[in-house]
C-alpha cells in the first residue's frame, strides 16, 4: 500500500513536469521525483538493507534531492532566468503526451518477461515514465536549464529501473554512476552560466549558429 501510494505520487509529479509552466516548479518537481524514487527503492527492497546500501541510498538522496536542485536554483538565480519554461509543445498537448507515455510504459512493463525477484511491474513502469518525462523535457522545452532538468529526471528514472528489475550492481560502479551524474549536471550548470553571459539568453532554439 505504501509502495502503491508512492507510485501514484510519482505519477502525479511526472505529469506535473509535463504540464507545468514554471522553471522553478520544474526544479522542485525533479527534487520530489528523486526523493520519491529513493523512497520507492527503500520500500520495494526485499529483506533488510545492509548499512552500505543505507549509506548509498542516503548519499543518493542528498545528491539528487538537495545538492543538484540547489545547484539548479543557483544557476537560475545568478543567470537571472525568466520563470516561464517556453514550451515548443503546448501544455495541454504535453499533458496528453504524458498520459500516452504512461500508457505505453505500463504496457511495456507488463509485456516484457520479468526476472525472478523483480518488483511490481508498476515500479518498472514508473521508472520508464520518469525517463520518458526527462526525454520529453529535453526535446520539447526551449530553455537550456529545462534540458538539464530533463537529463536529471531521466537519470532518476534509470536509477530506480535497476533495483526494480532486481539488478544490483557493485557499489563502486553505482557510486561512479552517481558521481558522473553529479559532475555532469554541475558542468551543465557552468556552461549555462557561460551561455547566459555570452548570449544574454538561454533559449536553445536561438542557439543556431552551427548548422548545415
Amino acid at each position: 500500500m505504501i509502495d502503491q501510494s508512492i507510485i501514484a505520487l510519482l505519477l502525479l509529479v511526472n505529469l506535473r513536469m509535463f504540464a507545468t509552466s514554471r522553471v522553478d516548479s520544474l526544479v522542485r518537481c525533479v527534487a520530489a521525483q528523486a526523493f520519491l524514487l529513493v523512497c520507492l527503492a527503500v520500500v520495494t527492497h526485499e529483506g533488510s538493507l545492509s548499512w552500505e546500501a543505507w549509506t548509498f541510498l542516503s548519499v543518493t538522496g542528498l545528491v539528487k534531492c538537495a545538492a543538484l536542485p540547489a545547484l539548479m536554483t543557483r544557476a537560475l538565480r545568478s543567470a537571472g532566468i525568466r520563470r516561464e519554461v517556453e514550451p515548443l509543445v503546448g501544455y495541454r498537448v504535453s499533458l496528453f503526451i504524458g498520459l500516452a507515455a504512461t500508457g505505453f510504459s505500463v504496457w511495456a512493463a507488463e509485456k516484457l518477461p520479468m526476472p525472478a525477484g523483480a518488483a511490481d511491474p508498476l515500479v518498472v513502469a514508473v521508472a520508464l515514465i520518469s525517463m520518458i518525462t526527462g526525454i520529453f523535457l529535453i526535446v520539447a522545452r526551449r530553455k537550456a536549464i529545462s534540458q538539464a532538468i530533463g537529463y536529471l529526471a531521466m537519470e532518476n528514472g534509470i536509477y530506480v529501473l535497476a533495483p526494480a528489475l532486481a539488478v544490483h550492481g557493485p557499489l563502486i560502479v553505482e557510486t561512479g554512476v552517481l558521481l558522473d551524474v553529479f559532475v555532469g549536471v554541475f558542468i551543465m550548470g557552468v556552461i549555462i552560466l557561460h551561455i547566459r553571459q555570452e548570449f544574454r539568453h538561454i533559449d536553445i532554439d536561438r542557439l543556431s549558429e552551427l548548422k548545415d
Partner: protein
Amino acid sequence: MMLRILFLAPFAAGLASLGISSPRVRRRLITIVSFFHLACTLIVWRTGFEPSAGRWIGLDALSMLFLLITSVLFASSSFATVAYLRGHELPVESRGRFSREAVFTCAMLFFLGTTTLAILSLHTGVFWMAIEATTLASAPLISYQRSSRSLEATWKYLLICSVGIAIALVGNTALAVSVAFDPATYGLPMTFRDLAERAVSLNPVWLKVAFALILVGYGTKMGLAPMHTWLPDAHSEAPSPVSALLSGALLNCAFLGILRTNAILVRAGIGGYSNGLLAAFGALSMLLAGWFVLRQADFKRLLAYSSIEHMGILAIAAGAGASFGGLLHALNHSLTKGALFLLAGTILGAYHTKSTRAVSGLIRISPATGLLWIAGFLAICGVPPFGTFVSEFSVMAVLGRGGRWWLLAAFLSALGIVFVGMWRIVIPMAFGRPSDPAVCVPRSRPIEAADVPPLALCCMVLLFGIWLPSPIARLIEHASAIAGGL
C-alpha cells in the same frame, strides 16, 4: 599494476596541474604525460596480456589495439596542444592556478585518463562510467575559446552525448536483467567476457533490448547517424588538437562498447539481429555523411563529416563480420584523421578562417603542409598506397563474398560521393591562387615543427598500406577474434 599506472598517472598529473602556477611547466606536463603513457603502453604490449575472467580492468587484444591508437594520437597531438596554448595566450590576470588554461590542462589529462579507463574496462558498468567521464572531461576542452559558437557546440555535445549515454545505461540494466533468468548465469559478474562465455543461457529478449539501447546510446557518442548531430559542431569548434583526439580516440572508445556487446549477441546465436542493426546504422551514416560532405564550406566540418562516414564503415564492417578489416580501418582512420585535424589546426593558424573558399594556394604558401594535406585526403579517401585502401577493400571483399549487394552498393556509392565532394574542396585549397599576401605570409622554411607529427602519422598509414608489420597484424587478428565472438 602497469595497467593501474596507465590510467591513474594522467589523473594524478591532471590534479597536479591545477596546483602549478607557471604556464610553461603546465604545458610541458601534457607532453611528458602523453609520452609516458605511450611508453607504458608499449611496455604493456611487449610484456603480453591475458585478462583473467571476472576482472573488471584488464587488457585483451582488442583493448590493446585501441589503447595503442589512443596513446599514439595523444602523444602526437601533444605538441600541437602546447603550441595551441602558446598561440592563444590569455590575459595575465587569468593565468594562475585554476585559471581557464589550468582547467584546460587538467581536463586534457583527465580526458586521457578516462579514455584509457574506458578502453581497459571489461566490466559493463565501469565501461559506462568511463565513457560518461570522457564526455565530461572533454566538454571543457571544446568550450575553451568561450566564444558563442564554441559554447553552443559544447552544450550540444554535453547534452546529446549525456542523454545518449544515459540510454546506454538502460541498455546495461537490460543486459544485467538478461542474466537473471537462468540459474546457471544468476549472479554472473557483469563483465563482457563472462557474458560472452555464457551467452547461450542469457535471455534473448532482454539481450535484444539491451543491444538496441546500447547501440543507440554508445552510437550517439560514436557519431552514428541519425544521432550524430553534435559531432560536426563539436569537432569544428574545438581547438584542432582536441578535434584530433575526439575523432581519433573518443569515437573509437564508444565503438569498443558496441563491438563487445555485439560479440555477446553473436555468441548467443542472435547475431543476425545485432549485425543487421549495425549495418543499417552504418549505411545510413555513410550516405548521410556523403550528402553533407558535398555541400560543405568549412574544412573542419568536412573532416567531421568524414569521421561520421568512417564510423559508418566501422559499423558496417562489424555488422558484416569483417572484423579484421574493420579494426584495421579503425587504426588507419584514427591515424589519418588525427594527422588531418592537426594540419587543419596549422592551416587555421595561418589563414585565420575555416572557410574553404578563403583558403587557397596552400602548396605555395606552405609546401610541406600543403603536400601533407593532400596526402592526408588521399589516405582518408582510401586511395591505393595507403592503409585505408587495404582496410576498406577487405571490408568490401567480405561484403561481396557474403552476397550483401545492397550494402555493398551503398558502401561504394557513399565512398564515391565523399571522394567527389572532398576533392572539389581540397584541390582549390591546395593548388588555387594564393590568398592575399597581406593576410597570409608565405613560410620561409619548407617544413615546420608543426608538420612533423602529421608527417609521422601519414607515414604510418602509408606503411600499413604497403606492409603490415607482423606484431600489429597478429594483434589485429587476435582482436578481431574477440570482436567476432569467436
